[in-house]
């Protein structure tokens, strides 16, 4: 037992001495910490956690900043990200954003044809009677996003629906444009457009 203990202690000491300051290294932080929820290279499994692979760098910076400043306050943001983002420096935030933006995005999968057709219509043309703009205008024809407008393609459908519902109910209030867009939309319309956007 003593031999095992001393061997283990030696391993411990050797390891500690070689430890580097992980906080400043965005890639180590991404693989060592963020990956626990967001998956390897940003390909998360559970729809509680958004896929970050290929996400717009500017959008990730904006969100991490909103978590740090408690401007984004939906339930999961509070439970997970307020703590996680609290000690990140501006440089680390930028490093993480660039790391995830550079990863290959997840491929989308198509939903039921009727839902996809309805979603496509809303995504490309909006809903004029409800003054809903075409999503494609900001998020791009292929839902790839642009700058602070996030990539939606390849995202978890359930995650997107959760965000749209958050804009509607006010739990996610850090995107004024979206709050106006979803105000009049029905749950069915939200599901349809999320399904279509995620499938791209």
């Amino acid at each position, binding site marked *: *037992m003593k031999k*095992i*203990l001393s061997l*283990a202690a030696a*391993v*411990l000491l050797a*390891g*500690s*001495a*070689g*430890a*580097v*300051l*992980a906080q400043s290294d965005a890639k*180590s932080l991404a*693989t*060592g*910490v963020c*990956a*626990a*929820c967001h998956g*390897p290279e940003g390909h998360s*499994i*559970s*729809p*509680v956690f958004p896929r970050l692979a290929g996400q717009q760098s500017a959008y990730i910076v904006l969100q991490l900043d909103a978590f740090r400043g408690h401007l984004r306050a939906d339930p999961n943001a*509070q*439970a*997970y990200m*307020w*703590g*996680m*983002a*609290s*000690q990140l420096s501006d440089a680390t935030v930028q490093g993480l954003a660039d790391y995830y933006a550079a990863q290959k995005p997840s491929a989308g999968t198509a939903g039921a044809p009727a839902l996809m057709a309805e979603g496509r219509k809303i995504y490309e043309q909006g809903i004029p009677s409800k003054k809903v703009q075409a999503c494609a205008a900001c998020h791009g024809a292929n839902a790839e996003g642009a700058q602070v407008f996030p990539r939606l393609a390849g995202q978890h459908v359930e995650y997107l629906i*959760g965000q749209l519902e958050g804009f509607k109910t006010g739990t996610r209030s850090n995107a004024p444009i979206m709050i106006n867009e979803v105000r009049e939309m029905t749950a069915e319309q939200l599901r349809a457009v999320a399904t279509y956007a995620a499938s791209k």
Partner: protein
Amino acid sequence: MQQKRFGGVVAALALCAGAILLAPTGAQAVPSFARQTGMACEACHTVFPELTPFGRRFKLNAYTIDNLPQVSGITPSKDQTLLLNQLPPLSFMFQMSYTSTKSAVPDTQAGTGTIPPDALAKNGQVLFPQQASLFYAGRIAPNLGGFVQMTFDGTSGSFGWDNTDIRYARLASDKFLWGVSFNNNPTVQDVWNSTPAWQSPFDQRSATAPTPGAATALDGRMVDAGVAGVSVYGWWNDSIYAEVGGYHSAPAASQLDSSIPNPVLDGIAPYWRVAFEHQWDRNSWQVGAYGTTAKFFPANGAPLSGPTDKFDDWALDSQYQYIGDQHLFSVTATYINEKQTYNATATENPSDTLKTFRIGGQYYYQRRYGAALGYFSTTGSEDAVLYASGTPLNGFGNNKPDSNGWVGELDWVPYQNTKIALQYIVYSKYNGASSNYDGLGRNASDNNTLYLLGWLNF
């Protein structure tokens, strides 16, 4: 024979006493992890103490994920030599309870002095506290963290050492994490809630209600004996887990000699564990196996040399979890098979078997209102010496260790760190039989237990 039986009874009583005084008790969740990470309890727990996939990862990472201002130190070559939370990750836990058995249990002094032989203890016991614990739980240094619990036990009135898991972990690559755990309870280091230390809804028990007398080495005998162990583990690709280590007797503040009331391990008892986990959508499913081979000197007046009693345990376990925004559901199960070979203790048979099976399901709505149902069963060889009759409450009238029954629980979690649980345990069989199990007229159902628990963590 009579003398041996007496010896067996004394050993059993000593084991029970030792278990109460020394055994790590119950399962905990600690707010200091929340304070350290800045994350709500729900990040790591469905409802405490059950872990989410992230909670498992946090534990495997040696409790080191940290989002607090740090006191840090580095060498000129930028090696980190200190990384300490500015505030220590301390927590406090307080449990209070009410316990009532269907029939009052016998007075422990029955038949002595002026106490009549059929005297009964007062039923309906309030424990305030049932248990109070102080924790240091969080990062100690880069890659090194601990879950250290000191507990005041209301039943014994003493302050003692409880569950401890100090571990070191490193990422070897993007997909492989390895670590070392120093702990005092086989399976306390485990990250799934299907193994004995943390299996809900079986891990919360009244401190005063009767408990069936037979348990495997993995399920209590090793913890009761007071052990310390070290194990090395690896976690690959978020799916395959392997661990190997060993346990050694380490009774609290005692010299290892014949005076120890509990059995003492001969050398090191190896421990092994393998598991596979698959995650999809909001689900995770795990299947695994674990085991140990423990050789014990009986101690309790016998020298720590010569022949030993050997306990070969292998076990299977599985866990399914669904974590939705509104609905959370989990099932945990384990089967433990033990072969006992008695070379040091006089028993009826040179070798016996003992098998335990438990399965439990839990449902929570919005992590606030919960219900759980579990079935437990232990069966084993008939052995007139190991399982002696003639002791009220704790005897085995037909010399069999068999016990089985159901546990049902309703939970209310008004805050993430506060739980009110109402539990009822129904025994179909207790220490070998349904009726007159102790040979003195007590039925298994007399031990049915109503248990109300208030549990605060802060």
